[in-house]
């Protein structure tokens, strides 16, 4: 409740009763009999005491309201009344309804009435208001068009999450729009909620409606049976009951302001900081509840307290939770399939078939997952706003933090508020960096630091726990030192009859646990050991006779919570206190029990719970069993693109079992993917020793092939590929083994290494051998790709650019068929570069179109960016400057989406080159300065010279000179075309001299430059292209054309000469 006097908000008064009295008077106009008020507010005391308390409350109220108190709170001997010009929004709501202004009423009255008031009358008033609002929303829905009607109905469901009637309305309306899956999903959510929170099945009317929607599906008899089973087996669990939010009015208002902006479409991120137990979660929950009451979606996820969990664990939880809430996305959207790798339950939820997908490089997998997560958030907000709460950021894995930053870049365009909570200590640099990045982008709507609560707020909180006298409350205030959690636990202990409040939280927790029977104690201990909330499936799998009943009993301690489908501690500190009290051997036993549950419930294939299971097994002292789980955790990490984490799990497994060949080879692969050649080689050498000792040549050849793949793919080390592939072939020859598949792979790899860095003719000879060995036909799509790719590179290397088209087309098509759009795009860009080299611009554009086509919908912005960059260069080269500007701008947008400073500099460089060509010299100078401000895959000497040229055109000659000097001090590589740099630099010196009016020097420099260009031929263009590819990972679109450069310098000389004349 908020009170304003002449537009100024009034702080809540110290006396809770006075505030409550004001609320009553506001809702009940006219004189209120003192006797009735006294009996209502102080029912448990004598009438005289109650009347005295009423007098005191009225006095407090009038004092706190200041002048307005005297004017409006009218108290006579028999009555109390709120009188005069008093506007009450709840009454205005009723008036608007009476006038038929339903839309305005629904807007005005959508917050819960008297939120935070727990008096019986307030609860009844809140319920009545909610029912009234639901009626209004239904009347609006009946007259609205289908989309708006759905929105009104969703708000009804949010107001009454377990209301069957409102759910039936929603199901009918969803079905009426043709979205039957969403209608059934709404039913499933209701069914699950009723089962979980009340142990009930939906009523016959609701079940029948669901059956009707299912059409020919399961019989209604079966559904009825199921309902009976659910009702019979589900033990009742208490619903969540929140304590009042005390002393956080200012913070709540700040949050609500951010939420108002967000739901209007300008999303943002909010950070809540503060020590453990200070009230971050309670504040976030308040916002979440209010938002849900307004029809918003909400989801909560949290970091794992155990440490060392699966990468992206935070997002796996969020995806699973949001997945339960959102309607099924259209079948053509690809993101649910990508996201299913992280949260497998999504595939079933959205009716997808989790088809096997090609393994792709970790960075591509990661890019897909990141984009899929952003798509999920966008989808979750496409039909209503949302609040996403991410708790305990200080515990979250680094990759999850990266993804928060990635998604946050989209947030300003979505109706979503992301609430991040974190403790101040221990410091976590990755979280600080995330906050800093959000701040820099202006995405942080608020940063709220929760200070210790005021004494009055602690007192309010304590009284909400139970009947405490003033002395008890004073004790709690003294002991809690403003910490909400401590206050609640101490108050709880006093209310339960303890004579003294416990000196510590641990003491309070011990007191709460003491009366628990064995099974309830055990389930509480298991929950403490688990380190996170357990889901219903995990709960019922715990090694207890009746885990649900035990959980229900444990929840009654007030330490645990069973709301929202999860079972766990209300706060991490409570969990830690229980955990700390467990004796060592018992604790180990419990960890093993949790690990067993996780392993038994694991999905087939790499499991996201494997890392957790491994952690529990290690804490249980079962290192022998932990190794297998660590290997599975590595598989899972690799599958979600978290290669650093995969390498970490494997390293840990190898510490426990150092002589395991499979682990060593997997670790070698992982290090290769991380680009750590020396480590990859070290692990390989260790594995090779073991394999050689076994004397199995096939195993030896296979091991060598592991290293070859690392060199060939992530490390890109052609000499290494040559060595390893040769070794594979030698081993097979020496042992007289056929091993055709291994031979084919080794031969094609060797051909690739010769094509890119050795003898192009030898590459052709090896490719002929591959075809011969395969009988003229290659069945494996990726092998066909390798062969065509090697042929393309060999032809480009030899300068046979047109001849490279054929193999390029074959390789591009094969890569797409093999599920590798990334490889396909690379091939098409190479082909475009080849076409540019022979001046076939239309062909080059066609190849670039094919690259974009291959990447369409894949979510790999980095590759798309490089393709758009290639397109900008193509247009620049062909003089289509507007198109070049647009293509470069598109690449810049993609860099922004990626949030990569390196790519931002690359695209700034492209845009700078285009700006110079368009005569936009100021813009060019600024963009190129940005491009040079840090690492980027660009030619720095060329970027500096281009900037110097722009500065010369602006007559900023000293700056141009400085840029020329800096060019001479830059490291130079083959991709900078060193043999052309002197001619380029001398030309720019000429331009600067001309800008200074020193025509003689200008002419001399330009003549020197022209002489330089005359000495440079365009032979070896294939090598030039390979040099750029090796240095920057992409080919040069438009090679150096000495004749063209010479022509330009000569034209400049002529112009200068004419001007001098």
């Amino acid at each position: 409740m908020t009170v304003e006097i002449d537009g100024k908000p009034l702080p809540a008064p110290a006396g809770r009763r006075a505030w409550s009295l004001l609320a009553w008077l506001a809702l009940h106009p006219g004189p209120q009999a003192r006797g009735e008020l006294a009996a209502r507010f102080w029912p448990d005391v004598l009438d005289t005491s109650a009347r005295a308390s009423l007098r005191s409350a009225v006095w407090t109220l009038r004092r706190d309201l200041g002048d307005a108190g005297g004017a409006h709170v009218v108290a006579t001997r028999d009555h109390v009344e709120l009188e005069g010009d008093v506007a009450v929004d709840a009454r205005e709501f009723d008036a608007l309804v009476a006038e038929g202004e339903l839309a305005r009423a629904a807007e005005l009255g959508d917050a819960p009435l008297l939120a935070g008031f727990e008096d019986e009358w307030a609860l009844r008033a809140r319920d009545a208001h909610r029912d009234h609002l639901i009626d209004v929303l239904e009347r609006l829905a009946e007259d609205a068009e289908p989309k708006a009607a759905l929105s009104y109905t969703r708000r009804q469901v949010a107001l009454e999450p377990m209301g069957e009637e409102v759910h039936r309305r929603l199901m009918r309306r969803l079905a009426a729009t043709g979205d039957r899956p969403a209608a059934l999903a709404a039913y499933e959510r209701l069914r699950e909620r009723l089962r979980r929170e009340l142990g009930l099945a939906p009523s016959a009317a609701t079940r029948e409606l669901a059956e009707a929607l299912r059409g020919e599906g399961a019989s209604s008899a079966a559904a009825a049976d199921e309902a009976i089973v659910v009702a019979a087996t589900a033990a009742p669990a208490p619903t969540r009951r929140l304590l009042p939010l005390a002393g956080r009015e200012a913070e709540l208002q700040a949050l609500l302001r951010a939420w108002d902006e967000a739901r209007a479409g300008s999303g943002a991120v909010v950070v809540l900081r503060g020590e453990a137990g200070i009230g971050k979660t309670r504040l976030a929950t308040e916002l979440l509840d209010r938002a849900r009451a307004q029809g918003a979606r909400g989801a909560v996820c949290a970091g794992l307290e155990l440490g060392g969990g699966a990468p992206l664990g935070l997002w796996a939880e969020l995806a699973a939770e949001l997945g339960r809430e959102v309607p099924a996305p259209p079948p053509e959207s690809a993101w649910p399939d990508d996201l299913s790798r992280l949260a497998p339950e999504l595939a079933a939820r959205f009716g997808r078939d989790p088809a096997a997908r090609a393994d792709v490089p970790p960075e591509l997998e990661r890019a897909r997952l990141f984009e899929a997560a952003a798509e999920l958030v966008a989808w979750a907000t496409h039909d209503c706003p949302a609040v996403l709460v991410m708790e305990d950021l200080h515990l979250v894995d680094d990759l999850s933090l990266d993804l928060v930053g990635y998604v946050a870049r989209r947030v300003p365009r979505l109706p979503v508020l992301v609430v991040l909570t974190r403790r101040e200590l221990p410091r976590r640099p990755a979280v600080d960096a995330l906050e800093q990045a959000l701040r820099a982008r202006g995405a942080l709507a608020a940063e709220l630091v929760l200070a210790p609560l005021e004494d009055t707020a602690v007192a309010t909180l304590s009284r909400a726990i139970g009947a405490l006298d003033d002395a008890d409350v004073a004790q709690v205030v003294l002991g809690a030192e403003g910490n909400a959690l401590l206050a609640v636990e101490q108050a709880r202990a006093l209310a339960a009859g303890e004579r003294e409040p416990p000196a510590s939280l641990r003491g309070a927790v011990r007191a709460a646990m003491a009366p628990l029977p064995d099974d309830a104690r055990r389930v509480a201990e298991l929950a403490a050991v688990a380190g996170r909330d357990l889901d219903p499936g995990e709960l019922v799998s715990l090694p207890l006779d009746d885990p649900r009943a035990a959980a229900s009993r444990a929840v009654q301690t007030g330490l645990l919570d069973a709301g929202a489908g999860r079972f766990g501690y209300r706060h991490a500190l409570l969990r830690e206190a229980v955990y700390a009290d467990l004796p060592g051997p018992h604790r180990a036993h419990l960890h093993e029990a949790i690990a067993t549950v996780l392993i038994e419930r694991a999905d087939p294939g790499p499991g996201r719970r494997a890392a957790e299971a491994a952690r529990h097994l290690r804490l249980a002292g079962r290192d022998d069993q932990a190794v297998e789980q660590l290997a599975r955790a590595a598989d899972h990490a690799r599958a979600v693109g978290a290669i650093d984490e995969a390498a970490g799990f494997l390293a840990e497994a190898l510490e426990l079992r150092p002589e395991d060949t499979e682990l060593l080879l997997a670790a070698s692969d992982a290090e290769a993917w991380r680009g750590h050649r020396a480590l990859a080689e070290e692990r390989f050498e260790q594995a090779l020793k073991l394999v050689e000792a076994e004397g199995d040549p096939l195993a030896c050849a296979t091991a060598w092939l592991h290293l070859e793949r690392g060199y060939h793919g992530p490390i890109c080390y052609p000499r290494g590929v040559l060595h390893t592939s040769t070794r594979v072939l030698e081993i097979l020859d020496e042992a007289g083994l056929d091993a055709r598949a291994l031979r084919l792979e080794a031969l094609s790899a060797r051909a690739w290494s010769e094509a890119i860095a050795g003898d192009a003719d030898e590459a052709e000879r090896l490719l002929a051998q591959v075809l011969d060995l395969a009988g003229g036909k290659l069945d494996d799509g990726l092998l066909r790709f390798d062969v065509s790719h090697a042929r393309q590179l060999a032809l480009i290397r030899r300068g046979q650019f047109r001849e490279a088209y054929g193999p390029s087309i074959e390789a591009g098509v094969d890569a797409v068929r093999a599920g590798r759009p990334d490889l396909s795009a690379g091939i098409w860009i190479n082909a475009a570069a080849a076409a540019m080299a022979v001046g076939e611009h239309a062909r080059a554009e066609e190849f670039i179109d094919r690259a974009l086509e291959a990447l369409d919908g894949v979510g790999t912005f980095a590759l798309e960016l490089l393709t758009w960059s290639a397109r900008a260069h193509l247009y620049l080269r062909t003089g289509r400057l507007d198109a070049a500007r647009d293509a470069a701008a598109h690449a810049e947008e993609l860099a922004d989406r990626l949030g990569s400073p390196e790519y931002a500099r690359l695209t700034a460089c492209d845009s700078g080159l285009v700006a110079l060509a368009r005569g936009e010299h100021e813009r060019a100078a600024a963009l190129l300065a940005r491009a040079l401000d840090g690492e980027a895959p660009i030619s720095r000497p060329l970027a500096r010279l281009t900037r110097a040229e722009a500065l010369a055109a602006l007559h900023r000659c000293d700056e141009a000179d400085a840029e020329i000097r800096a060019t001479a001090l830059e490291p130079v590589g083959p991709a900078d075309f060193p043999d052309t740099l002197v001619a380029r630099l001398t030309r720019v010196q000429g331009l600067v001299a001309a800008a200074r009016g020193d025509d003689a020097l200008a002419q001399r420099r330009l003549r020197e430059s022209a002489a330089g260009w005359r000495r440079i031929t365009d032979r070896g263009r294939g090598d030039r292209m390979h040099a750029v590819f090796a240095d920057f990972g992409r080919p040069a679109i438009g090679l150096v054309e000495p004749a063209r450069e010479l022509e330009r310098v000569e034209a400049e000389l002529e112009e200068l000469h004419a001007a001098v004349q």
Partner: protein
Amino acid sequence: MPQFSDAITTSAPPEEVWKLLYDASRFAEWWEGIETSEVRDGGATIYPDGYPDFPMPQAIEASRDDGGRVRISCLVSDIRFEWRLTEHAGGTRISVEVEVPEEEAQRFDRQREVAQKSLRNLAECARA
């Protein structure tokens, strides 16, 4: 492998020294003992004083990874020169590191002399 290093400071700006270092057609202007040099098809060839018919092809490498050094290796003798420029008090400090293979060890002192004179020449040429 026997090696030595030397350095000199010149008042010439780095870009003028740099232009001489990167332009193989101008090696003869400052490289002691070189009579002529030519650039053809992207490669450089030098001809020693008094040996107009004795071409010595040179590999000129520039590597981004080792701090912007220009490495000039003789493909006949395997003697390698690495040149590096740094800005110094308004001018340039030119450093050179030379590696002489074992089989050319008898030319070590002569190469030290060549490097010293070439440094002086380079500094002067750039100033001109």
